[in-house]
């Protein structure tokens, strides 16, 4: 029990479904934050969220400057070559200042903190990927059913 008399959260299962920088980081920050609080955490990457754990892609995750209303940038401006790279580099600098690590280091840190990391089987099959395409921190490729089994007793967070 905490000070409000409510049962504290013991376990979270976080789904990362989007592949851009702004799609991936919220889930990583929440998983890391859970472990910091002593909460058990599982990360499940699906669809383009898999980019965060695909060895060849994880170092090249970018901010979407088109189709991203949060950027407050007119679509045609966002489409100018180099705009996404520019926005990404600005955001990465800000994140480094806040001590938020790059994707690869963050995944390693979260895994070392005891968070289990899984890739979604349906997406892996759809994109013709194998275990070898992923960074070593990916514990396994699992089905939705297995994800629910592993999430027993957890709060599920979809990002």
């Amino acid at each position, binding site marked *: 029990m905490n000070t409000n008399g409510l049962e504290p959260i013991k376990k979270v299962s976080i789904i990362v479904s989007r592949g851009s920088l702004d799609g991936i980081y919220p889930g990583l920050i929440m998983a890391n934050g859970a*472990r910091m609080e002593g909460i058990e955490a599982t990360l499940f990457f699906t669809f383009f969220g898999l980019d965060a754990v695909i060895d060849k892609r994880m170092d090249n995750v970018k901010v979407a400057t088109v189709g991203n209303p949060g950027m407050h940038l007119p679509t045609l401006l966002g489409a100018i070559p180099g705009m996404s790279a520019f926005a990404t580099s600005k955001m990465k600098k800000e994140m480094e200042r806040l001590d938020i690590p790059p994707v690869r280091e963050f995944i390693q840190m979260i895994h070392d903190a005891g968070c289990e990391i899984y890739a979604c089987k349906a997406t892996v099959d759809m994109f013709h990927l194998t275990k070898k395409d992923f960074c070593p921190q990916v514990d396994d490729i699992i089905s939705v059913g297995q994800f629910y089994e592993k999430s027993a007793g957890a709060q599920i967070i979809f990002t």
Partner: protein
Amino acid sequence: MTTTTVIDSQTLQRDADGHLENMAEWNDQVAQALALEEGIPALTERHWLVINYMRKEFKEKGDAPSIRKMTKESGVDTKELYALFPKGPAKKAAKIAGLPKPKGCI
């Protein structure tokens, strides 16, 4: 809500989360007693390395360091940090070190 605990015949003011209200009341015996509360029976040399680093950072910067900074600068890696302070290294280590709850998210 503030509570008080007596450690080594010293009365300590604690905040709602159990952190010391007054850093100056902290000493080695207090740290040991606080560690025991957190389920750490004896503070080892490695625990002290983390605790002393956190206190130094707090004095210099006004907040406890992030886990990332701690692992890069204290010489204790992430896995060991979680093994030393199970159930939440940043918060637990800060509490044992007599510091307020860390403000950062990382």
